[in-house]
């Protein structure tokens, strides 16, 4: 019988939540790395027992962890992230030039076919790769040295590369997103990159439809339709049908189109989920109600999903890496909140229940569907 393993990164450690396919009763294991910020954990698609975790601390810096037994035990891996050459400056919040400085790993993306190959998106924004199971890391500098890089400026969370999406039909093609530079696409496994933001408009920039500078919060793809991507931008929910050569807005009837997460149903490529957040100055759900919105039409037409979610006095946020879907049927949907709850739906969002209610603030949620 299939089962699922939910990997939760929080401000104060990692947790592994396990259930059978019913997704009704859960075992909670953790905290792992207690006291450390765990920005992201993710398992290898080709070896689900191989997990990677980004462990960091304002005091002690960056640590990488690796597990070969599905998170029961962990070992420290390589944590040297050195930019190639002498990095130039990017733009600081006040508009002044600021030197590129490594701060932390935001996102780990294991390759689709090799458990020892893993990509890392870091702050200050750069793209790293390991081919030895995270023991050593090399920057692919084509992104950070892009001709526009000196104009990139940080979002509130820093100049972070937070999303990596691999095209399963052409694995040399990848998309990344940087706050606040936007989406970039590579077709040669990360050697060269080009901005992929046509159609985005952001009123935080003097040139609202500039080639770069957009605060993209998250992008998501269904593996069966890799030319279609969905985006939650700072404001606006967007969609591309041509591999990010152009984007169009699909916010439609959402109560607010600010938010962080976006994800796609495992079996319905046109079914998309977001969690609207009030605004860029009010990072909590609108009207005290925690509502996931689902579109079954690829955007524009959205329905609120509320069964089992708090509908009064709720003021949590859901951060960009904190939603995921499993591949069971019916599809399971999961998200974690700044209040420490992890909610699960075993029926594609129709009904929800908390797996846990009182973890530290949740930074990331990933799920593995296991045989």
């Amino acid at each position: 019988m299939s089962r699922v393993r939910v990997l939760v990164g929080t401000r104060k450690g990692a947790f592994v939540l396990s259930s059978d396919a019913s997704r009704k009763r859960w075992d909670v294991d953790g905290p792992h790395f207690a006291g450390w910020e765990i920005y992201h954990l993710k398992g290898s698609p080709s070896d689900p027992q191989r997990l990677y975790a980004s462990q960091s601390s304002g005091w002690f810096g960056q640590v990488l962890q690796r597990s070969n037994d599905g998170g029961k035990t962990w070992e420290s891996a390589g944590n040297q992230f050195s930019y190639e050459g002498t990095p130039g400056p990017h733009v600081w919040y006040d508009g002044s030039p600021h030197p590129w400085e490594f701060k932390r790993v935001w996102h780990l993306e294991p390759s689709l076919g090799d458990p020892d190959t893993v990509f890392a998106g870091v702050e200050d924004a750069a793209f790293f790769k390991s081919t030895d199971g995270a023991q050593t890391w090399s920057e692919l500098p084509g992104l950070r040295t892009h001709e526009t890089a000196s104009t990139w400026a940080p979002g509130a969370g820093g100049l972070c590369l937070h999303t990596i999406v691999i095209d399963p039909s052409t694995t040399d093609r990848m998309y990344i997103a940087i706050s606040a530079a936007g989406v970039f696409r590579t077709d040669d496994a990360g050697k060269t990159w080009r901005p992929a933001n046509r159609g985005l408009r952001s009123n935080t920039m003097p040139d609202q439809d500039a080639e770069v500078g957009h605060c993209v919060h998250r992008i998501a793809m269904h593996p069966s339709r890799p030319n279609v991507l969905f985006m939650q931008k700072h404001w606006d929910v967007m969609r591309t049908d041509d591999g990010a050569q152009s984007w169009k807005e699909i916010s439609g009837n959402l109560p607010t189109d600010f938010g962080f997460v976006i994800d796609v149903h495992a079996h319905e490529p046109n079914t998309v989920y977001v969690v609207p957040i009030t605004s860029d100055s009010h990072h909590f759900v609108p009207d005290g109600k925690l509502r996931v919105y689902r579109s079954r039409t690829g955007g524009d037409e959205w329905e609120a999903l509320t069964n089992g979610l708090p509908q009064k006095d709720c003021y949590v946020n859901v951060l960009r890496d904190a939603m995921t879907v499993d591949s069971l049927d019916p599809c399971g949907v999961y998200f974690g909140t700044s209040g420490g709850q992890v909610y699960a739906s075993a029926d594609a969002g129709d009904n929800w229940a908390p797996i846990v209610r009182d973890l530290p603030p949740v930074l990331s949620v990933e799920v593995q569907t296991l045989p």
Partner: protein
Amino acid sequence: MIRVVLPANLQTLAGVGRVVELEVSAPITQRSVLDALENNYPALRGTMRDMTTKKRRPMLRFFACEEDWSDVSPDAPLPDEVVSGKEPFLIIGAIAGGRR
């Protein structure tokens, strides 16, 4: 034998208790003690000093014999009490938490 006191998060990371004992070759300095600590516990590499420059991480302090050694040259000899093992070399996380 040199005794080093670790903060809680580094104890967890290295899988050790509050105090670790190290064989350190002379001269006994902050640099040689931290080198020995990292060699014995590779998981600690990069958590106390920058991997490349070996500069102390800004939110850590190094104490010995009731003195703050944080800004003393890493190659200065440590006090005899530390060299003899009578007093520990202390690695302290700055009191700067709370925001998160």
